[in-house]
């Protein structure tokens, strides 16, 4: 299980830039990012190298942000890679609320898949039971 940071953003020019600037100034690396939007506001969801540091600096800068548990997997970046993973999710009856992906860095042939699921702990245990290896917080820091 790893920590994802969700940040409330108003839907207007410059708000995402305010967020990235604070992360950059505090030397926080973004590993994966997705943006969910409505007509009026958005939620940025991020996986970063140091989630606790990130949430502290964001709160200090008057952002509304929170940590949520997500599970992440490294899968081979090849046809059928995601399908194989989802087959396991399906067999373990894990319900996905939302997901996003990030390609591995140059040189590796892998991709990272991040999932927000219902009943995170139980779901993760079920997937581990089927032989899958979710990433840990340390894995994320070292990507």
């Amino acid at each position: 299980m790893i920590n994802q940071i969700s940040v409330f953003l108003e839907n207007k020019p410059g708000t995402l830039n305010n967020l990235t600037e604070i992360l950059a100034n505090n030397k926080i690396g973004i590993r994966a990012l997705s943006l969910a939007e409505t007509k009026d506001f958005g939620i940025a969801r991020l996986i970063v190298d140091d989630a606790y540091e990130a949430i502290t600096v964001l709160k200090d800068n008057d952002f509304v942000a929170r940590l949520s548990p997500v599970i992440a997997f490294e899968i081979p970046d090849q046809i059928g890679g995601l399908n194989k993973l989802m087959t396991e999710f399906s067999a373990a009856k894990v319900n996905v609320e939302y997901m996003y992906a990030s390609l591995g860095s140059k040189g590796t042939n892998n991709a990272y898949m991040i999932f927000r699921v219902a009943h995170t702990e139980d779901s993760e245990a079920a997937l581990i039971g089927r032989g899958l290896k979710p990433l840990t917080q340390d894995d994320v820091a070292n990507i």
Partner: protein
Amino acid sequence: MERYFQKEIECASREEIKAMQDEKIVAQVKHVWENVPYYKKKMEKKGVTPDDIKGIDDLYKLPFLSKADLRDAYPYGLLGVPLDECVRIHSTSGTTGKRVVAFYTQDDIDLWDDCCARAIVAAGGTKSDVCQVSYGYGLFTGGAGLNGGSHKVGCLTLPMSSGSTDRQIMFNQDLQATILCCTPSYAAYLGERMKEMGYGPDEIPLKAGIFGAEAWSEEMRHDIEKTLGIKAYDIYGLTELSGPGVAFECSEQNGMHINEDHFVAEIIDPDTEEVLPIGSEGELVFTALDKKAFPLLRYRTRDICRLSLEKCSCGRTHVRMCKPKGRTDDMLIIRGVNVFPSQIETVLINHGYAANYQIIVGRVNNTDTLDVKVEMTPEMFTDNIGDIEARQKELVDGLKAMLGIKAKVILVAPKTIQRSEGKAVRVIDNRKI
């Protein structure tokens, strides 16, 4: 046990109060007739002379004064004494765009200070208390009024004025202030900031707060009481009548006792100007019985309110006024419906949002639009858009139930709605009518 600043007055019998008012109104009308030609003309126009006023029951015969009169007579037209008898002026904040200048003799200031002292004692204040006055000092009456009252009670007075929030908190902690006087929106902001700095209610030395000068809801009171760990008391007043202290809350926290030895209240129908029986809702009208420099008779406050003469368990006998529902000029007419900002505030707080909000009224295709901007709070935020939208919809439904019209709720980032250190600017009306 309930304590009083001037028990013999505050707990006088209704007969004694009436006798006091009968005597004072006769003298006051005579004073105004002789010294304020502007009002004399109004009386003549209505065919009233001082001889017609034999007691407080004849009050209804006198003409009204309105904000427009104060503007017409600006600056000296309603002055009741020579300027060299006056020792100070105060002026309204101009939130409604029209400044009023009020004059005071030393006696006027003394009676005003007494009124504020009554409020402080009713809130539990004694000479051992440390009273932090965080109303603005200056032309605004808040700072001067509570400062004067605090002196009369004998509290150690911290004349903080408004603003410099971190310094306010430092003095509050270092000098262990026990009573806070400021606007409710500033009290809420101070509480928010103290919470951020890690001070829980037990680490905050305050025991009571006296908050006024703007409309606030019962829900906002509970919020402030919880955050600061205090009992929060309402105080009412207006510059035209002296300032805060025209009426104040007692330990019952159920309506504000009007200082009837100095101010007589009436409730009228704002359209017909007819005096309504006690208990009716209508516009609050005040007559100043003792003030000499700025002696307003039958001044229309534009506050919508109700009076009660029900016996109060605190022992005070003076009539109580409810929290004004709103000023007639705060009232917005949106799609033909009367909307008071305080109603919107009630709904927001009931739904867990901060009392900091902005109401934006506009007009699109000849139809009024009502947008309510509220700040996202850490408690309300989740990573799930559906949850946030569901809460947003609950709020829209809550507003619809309260107001009868649909409002759009706009969630904005924290601290993006301006905090007020004086009076909050809650309403932006962009309609060009």
